[in-house]
């Protein structure tokens, strides 16, 4: 993992739009996607979100496609299991595998496609959020919700230290690799153990230093954040409502449609 999605979010032009609006769009997409009963609505949401991320958010198209492929492994395994083992309707395809009869039934396939499209729309919504909104912007939103103070404080500190340690871990890993630390299986296990322990010890020392530094600057368990006020523009509001209405309409009209 050399680049985190956050890096792209910092460069995105959509970063300077209202955070609440983006969050509402994402939550709407997630909820409608997950509760839809036909694969058409989630696909529509996925298309809209992808278009917004790539065309308006200027996320590199190649990277975006690669990102979409990444979680496909889990999705496919799950979907194949659902396709083969659930459902009781008409048989579409059946064969024997090592003595076990396997068959795909119509409603099982239908369910599998639905789940696949839901996952796809969920992923697109998540990518929209993570490719256009850096975490620092979201902290202001988190502060406004009534979550416990210590939880938010902890997440902010964790966020900061992720980058410090990621750098450290990568340089240790490069150093180990050039010294053939990952040349065979036994050595890789050993190297991973060394990497983990060094990381652990260093992070512990870092934590001690952090406490001293913060204490000497009068840390009292609260960090104040500066929130930039970003008004929602009329055109954004219009586009969002058109998108919401069309998604809802599609959701309503495709309620009972099945494609197989």
């Amino acid at each position, binding site marked *: 993992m050399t680049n985190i999605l956050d890096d792209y979010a910092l460069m995105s032009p959509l970063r300077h739009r209202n955070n609440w609006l983006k969050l509402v769009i994402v939550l709407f997409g*997630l909820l409608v996607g*997950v509760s839809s009963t036909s694969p058409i609505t989630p696909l529509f949401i996925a298309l809209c979100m992808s278009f917004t991320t790539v065309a308006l958010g200027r996320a590199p198209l190649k990277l975006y496609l690669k990102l979409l492929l990444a979680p496909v492994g*889990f999705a496919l395994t799950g979907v194949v299991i659902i396709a083969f083992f659930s459902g009781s309707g008409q048989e579409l395809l059946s064969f024997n595998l090592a003595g076990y009869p396997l068959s795909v039934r119509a409603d099982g396939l239908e369910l599998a496609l639905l789940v696949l499209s839901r996952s796809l729309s969920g992923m697109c919504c998540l990518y929209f959020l993570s490719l256009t909104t850096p975490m620092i912007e979201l902290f202001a939103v988190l502060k406004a919700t009534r979550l416990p103070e210590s939880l938010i404080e*902890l997440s902010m500190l964790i966020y900061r230290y992720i980058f410090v340690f990621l750098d450290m871990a990568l340089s240790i890993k490069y150093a180990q690799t050039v010294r053939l630390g990952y040349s065979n299986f036994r050595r890789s296990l050993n190297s991973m*153990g*060394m990497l983990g322990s060094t990381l*652990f010890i260093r992070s512990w020392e870092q934590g001690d230093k952090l406490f001293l530094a913060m204490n000497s600057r009068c840390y009292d368990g609260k960090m104040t954040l500066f929130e930039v006020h970003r008004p929602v523009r009329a055109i954004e509001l219009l586009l969002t409502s058109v998108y919401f209405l069309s998604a809802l309409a599609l959701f309503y009209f495709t309620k009972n449609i099945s494609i197989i």
Partner: protein
Amino acid sequence: MHIMEGFLPSPWWQAWFAVSIPVIMYGIYKMNKLVNEKREILPLLAVAGAFVFVLSSLKLPSVTGSCSHPTGTGVAAIIFGPAISAVLGTIVLLYQALFLAHGGLTTLGANVFSMGIVGPVVAYLVYKAGMKANLNFYIVVFLATAFGDWATYVTTSVELALAYPAGGVLTVAGFMSSFGKFATVFAVTQVPLAIMEGAISALLFKYVVNVKSDILIEMKVIEAAVVKKLRGISA
């Protein structure tokens, strides 16, 4: 074993949130108590959370060729106990969903339950039982991490099987058959993975004991006498 965004249908993702939230609230309560007692613990918790995230974003040397990551929560559970690991796990899972697109927001509840709650609790129980039985510390760490991982993967299979039982309606037989299938397919990657993570965690603790054992004594993970025995110094 992250469940993907959108994979769990409607009554189930809410249900897992309902199960996870009280546990996290309890974890936050415990954490607040600890922080009020010892103020220097908050930065330490923060770096521990970052450590878990970084550890889980590193690719493990893999046997099956699939992309596999350690969960890292086993180590956290051994050091901080399960309640605080649940809070750390939740934050880490949220970041994983947002930065790496592992897991998702609607499935966060289910993922927190399997990886932030069940895994650490099992790891912690195994660890405590093993230490009480006076086994070798490294073997206990290995067992705790491996069993924690397996518990996570069994829980994930249960979550998926409850949502997608065989036959389409939730019955005991349908659940069992579907659970068997999910568990078998995931076992291919998860069983060796857990063993490897256990080995790496044991190695990790070995280096920590050799280099900076005072951390572990301070956090009451192991006693000074055990460290001396492990390092081969006769007291």
